[in-house]
């Protein structure tokens, strides 16, 4: 807003000179000219496919024969089909594991690492960040081994006498979704912690000194100084991890395939399954578009709330 009014004032001033009215117009168009190549690229590979997906979503199409126009019927089905509703609920549960939990843990971890002035901080930062570097498919394969009935998690539980807790984690109707979600927690925690550490390192140490002089302890310091200072980073972390949670595909595809029964189905997996396995391309596009709108919506709220509290 500020920049656009400045531009207008600028144009007004030049209008006084006013002998060549074409100049400001050209001036205003030139930036768009520079934008054009990038925009054309973006349009060809992002906007056109999205528009095409929107178009597909109002057709019933098997990918082979001529599609039939069905209006919004696919979208109605997205909200009424119990299987799809279940998938969206699972995605919301995953937000807790991918976003809420890592941010809560990450805040504590980052605060401890920051305040404790740990020796070898770069080392710990690297270790914590490492899960982000590994491809999700690799992570999923590894965790599938860990969760196996005779995998290392159950072995560890049995070794300490907790035999009652050992179970086939990914085949258990209650525990498979949390088990899949926890892999997400493990993977996002590094990113979140490193982001928050960066935010905390910006806080002037004078603030902490002042707080300490006023008699604040570690906990008080955290809530009074650290937390408000890293609000922006928290917003960024939430945005990134919520997107990751909602578009989870590879993790579910590799670990459970949506099972046991339907207890770990997620929308992205339904898109793949319907488009490529069941030949319901229109329906799959409708699920995809709904998911896109949901991601946009949730992140809009997160960013609105985050922005308001910083100013």
């Amino acid at each position: 807003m500020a920049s656009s009014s400045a531009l207008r004032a600028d144009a007004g001033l030049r209008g006084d000179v006013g002998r060549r009215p074409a100049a400001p117009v050209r001036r205003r168009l030139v930036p768009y000219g520079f934008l054009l190549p990038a925009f054309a690229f973006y349009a060809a590979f992002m906007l056109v496919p999205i528009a095409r997906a929107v178009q597909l979503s109002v057709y019933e199409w098997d990918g082979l024969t001529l599609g039939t126009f069905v209006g919004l019927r696919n979208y109605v089905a997205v909200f009424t089909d119990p299987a799809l509703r279940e998938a969206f609920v699972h995605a919301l549960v995953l937000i807790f594991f991918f976003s809420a939990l890592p941010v809560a843990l990450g805040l504590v971890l980052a605060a401890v690492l920051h305040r404790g002035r740990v020796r070898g901080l770069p080392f710990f930062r690297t270790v914590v960040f490492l899960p982000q570097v590994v491809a999700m498919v690799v992570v999923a394969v590894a965790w599938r081994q860990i969760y196996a009935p005779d995998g290392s998690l159950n072995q560890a539980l049995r070794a300490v006498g907790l035999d009652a807790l050992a179970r086939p984690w990914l085949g258990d109707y209650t525990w498979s979704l949390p088990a899949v979600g926890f892999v997400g927690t493990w993977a996002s925690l590094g990113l979140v912690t490193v982001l928050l550490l960066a935010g905390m390192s910006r806080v002037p140490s004078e603030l902490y000194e002042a707080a300490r002089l006023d008699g604040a302890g570690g906990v008080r310091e955290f809530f009074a100084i650290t937390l408000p200072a890293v609000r922006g980073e928290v917003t960024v972390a939430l945005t990134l991890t919520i997107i990751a949670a909602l578009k989870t595909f590879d993790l579910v595809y590799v670990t459970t395939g949506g099972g046991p029964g339907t207890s770990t189905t997620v929308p992205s997996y339904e898109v793949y399954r319907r488009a490529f396995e069941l030949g319901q391309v229109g329906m799959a596009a409708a699920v995809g578009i709904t998911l896109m709108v949901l991601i946009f919506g949730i992140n809009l709220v997160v960013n609105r709330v985050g922005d308001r509290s910083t100013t």
Partner: protein
Amino acid sequence: MTRTTSRWRGAIGVAAVLGLAACAPGSGSVEPDGTDDTAGAGEISTDISDVQTTLTVWDQEVRGGQNEQIERLNEAFEEQYPGVTIDRVSQSFEDLATTLRLALTDDEAPDVVQANNGRGTMGAFVEADQLLPLNEYAEAYGWYERYPASVLQYSTYSEDGAVFGEGNLYGLPQVGEVVGVFYSRSKLDELGLEVPTTWAELDAALAAAKAAGQTPLQLGNIEAWPAGHVFGPLQAEYTDPADITALGLGNEGASWTTPENEAAAAHLAGWVEQGYFNEGPNGTDYDAAWQALAAGDGVFLIGGSWLAADLEDAMGEDVGFFVPATDDGTLATTGGTGLPFAVTADTDVPDVAAAYVDFITSDEAMEIIAETGNLPVNRTGELAPDGGVQKDVFEAFGEVTTSGALLPYLDYATPTMGDTLGQSLQNLIAGQMTPAELTEALEADYGQFVGAAG
């Protein structure tokens, strides 16, 4: 602010125009010329010695022995017909399944493709007129004599794709598959048991193994489909093969909610209750289960013939295979064929494509297929190796296809049946569903499809 909105409006406008300008999905694909099924008898030819062309073949024969047999056969074909060059495009089963739809509707469609038998793949292609009916070539080349009818039904559809198992022939498979019971000889010896031949004897052996503290039956069902290969053969013990075929092929006239099907499901649920399976089959990998059997944990494993090669590598002479007989002594079990080779409707060289399909499924080709460690779909009994588990598998497949009943994979039935069956069986194994509820869930899927198709 105003500027931002107008820019957005512009972007939305552009998107809307693009959306409207694009035509309905599917309308861009090439329409077949409609002469396919009315081609006169004089038009086809089995003599391609003068033809100069390139034949594009999409296959999924990528694993060791499969790749070797197709390479040898392609080479022999090019040698016999010097005018023909084969352009082979091979990819994994999963990749082929996801790309074939797009490939068939493309202007430059391949000439020969390997298409999965089920309604979701071959059935959908037939319905969309993308595959060439091969009836006339079958007459000319004698394919109806070469193959048992129980095998050919898996690549036969009515012209509109509505009926599976009757009508036009759309492809020929090279290899067979049969589901049966693998066992460890040394474990049976240890328990003092003979190799069972019937389901009753198998039940007795399972009970004895359990009593001796062994894992009677290995199952890795995290992928949800493996349990279907346990339920299928069990169903053959109770239900009439004709009914199973109708249910499996998704044709009208049968029902899931019968006492027989429920009894089959109850039999499986009983195995779970008796604790015959390894711990947590729903959380165990398919591969981990047979690897456990190979490593000496477990006595039996119900699975397909495709496991024989790996199990033999790991267990040598210790592994055996059998198909339990039903009460009247016949061998009835789930099985089928490898992916059939089909000819596309858009091919410019149908004669060459048909000659190729004939060549790679000929009696001589079966020898090469057997030599490279695959289970040939024809002449199986006579090409059996001298010993080992492969001998058991070859003989079982030979007997099932000639004097027994080869029953379709149950997930062929409807496009969604694979998921319904897998999820329901996982539920049954976890005790979340009763046998009656399982048959109702399967009936709902089957009934909806048959109702919609009829």
